[in-house]
């Protein structure tokens, strides 16, 4: 599981960098393009991350859910409503262009914003936790704008997946 996530993150970052216009950020497009995910068992964590898309992206200093993010969260909510055995943690992240404490607070705001959107789509609050990593856990690693926009994200992590 851990290994898969890592591979996934790296691959995701690479895809986004090479195809910035190809709908990066919806998750679905990237992975359909990659040819992965067709074998994911419905209801599995792989199904969620690959076919549904586990993350949404934010504008600079913002915690508003963008139109593309709303689509992703709607898919997440449908999936979570179909598989009620799962609980989730929504992780909020910020890019590196901010100070440490503010970015932790901003990550919280993003996580809460994504969680509240899921709640509005019928996912029970008691199934959801939030955590903020601020700027401490970037997925894309470089020193320019292409990376920073990938790091401003909220990621939905399935907590109680069968291994």
């Amino acid at each position: 599981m851990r290994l898969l996530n890592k591979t996934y993150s790296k691959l995701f970052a690479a895809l986004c960098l090479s195809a910035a216009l190809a709908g990066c950020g919806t998750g679905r497009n990237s992975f359909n393009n990659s040819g992965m995910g067709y074998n994911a068992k419905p209801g599995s964590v792989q199904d969620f991350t690959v076919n549904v898309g586990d993350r949404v992206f934010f504008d600079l200093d913002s915690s508003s859910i963008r139109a593309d993010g709303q689509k992703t969260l709607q898919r997440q909510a449908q999936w979570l409503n179909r598989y009620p055995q799962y609980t989730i943690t929504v992780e909020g992240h910020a890019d590196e262009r901010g100070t440490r404490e503010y970015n932790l607070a901003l990550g919280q705001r993003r996580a809460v914003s994504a969680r509240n959107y899921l709640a509005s789509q019928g996912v029970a609050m008691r199934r959801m936790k939030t955590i903020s990593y601020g700027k401490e856990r970037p997925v894309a690693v470089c020193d320019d704008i292409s990376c920073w926009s990938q790091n401003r994200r909220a990621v939905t992590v399935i907590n109680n997946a069968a291994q």
Partner: protein
Amino acid sequence: MKYQAKYWGFLPLAVLSFMTAAVHYGRAQVVVDVSGGNFNPIPIAITDFIADDDMGQKISEVIAADLERSGLFRPLDKSIFLENITNPDVPPRFNDWQQIQAQGLATGRVGREADGRLRVEFRLWDIYGHTQMEGRQFYAPEDSWRRIAHIIADAIYRKMTGEKGYFDTRIVFVDETGPKNARIKRLAIMDQDGANLSYLSDGREMVLTPRFSPTRQEITYMAFSGSRPGDDAPRVYLQQIEDGKRELVGRFPNMTIAPRFSPNGQKVIMSLLEDDGGSNIYTMDLTTHQTSRLTSGSAINTGGSYSPDGGKIVFETDRNGKQQIYVMNADGSDQKRISFGDGSYSTPVWSPRGDYIAFTKLTDRQFSIGVMRPDGTGERILTSGFHNEGPTWAPNGRVLIFFRQNAGQESELHSIDITGRNERRVPTPHGASDPAWSPLLD
């Protein structure tokens, strides 16, 4: 915790002043104004302290390095000294030292007591006033020789600048290794000159923003637990430096971040990441465990830092759009914005002297370190670049350490004078961030 400081704590250190007739001097001709304008470092002669081994030279080198690094002194090359000090108990030949333009002269002697302790004697001479400005004697364990040198450097700094020194201090910071997307962050502590580095955590959990207690051998910081995400929220902790024991600060429903001590060490101020997405500032009394909330609403309120008298708190908030610096009373009343420049302001920290607030300022593509007065006037930017963040004050309120990262490079610690002069790299073994300066150890 397996990791502990190599040595730390209150040294059994006896300090005696020499009783000499000339200690009191009426003239202050070598006292310099360090508050601004152009400045030429004070030429000073630091002789090798007389000793049976190399300890005298080692102590003199640490003193000279401290004074040189401050930017206020220019230790003279020993090869130009005309007088060879053989008896530090008698006045030097002042004319010989005047000829090489020394304004001050430090001499001394190192001996060993029967129980193995070092005995270090030190005198500071005013070359133009022909007087002894300072005379002291120290007893300490052999392995604390660097501390004695720092205490002597502090004494020289104080006598010759009129300001308290800051050399007998330590820095706690976050040591960073590994790739950016899997960074290992460990708590580390070292002397202000980079010596005697040791680790206070093992790197298994991510730690951020350590701060010194002003009164005890204690730090507060925030840590992400090593367990699975969501199982245990990241929290503010308190940790004893000597034995590594730690405790959670407060029982809050969510993550707590950005801790700092109150000036009397009785409270920790920190921010709670609220369930509605906002962040608010709380304090917790470490004795009664009582908590109080000082800000409210769904904005980001964080980065609280007390004034040295404990009466006020500076903090940052984005309640009116961008992050700005505000000041409030210690009970949360009378919250007033003080920063009004372009860009946004973050990480405010009140000087231990009370006269300035240091901050990180974010403009278009620059991260700067600056200072302003507590009423928001007199803003000055000290240094700018790709990324500079998180200033911390020397106990005398004259020098700041912050961390800097140039694009694509490791994060480093740097020091700078509040006048914007004398920027220096502070040596660390790896990447380093989140520095916090200790008070004078005493």
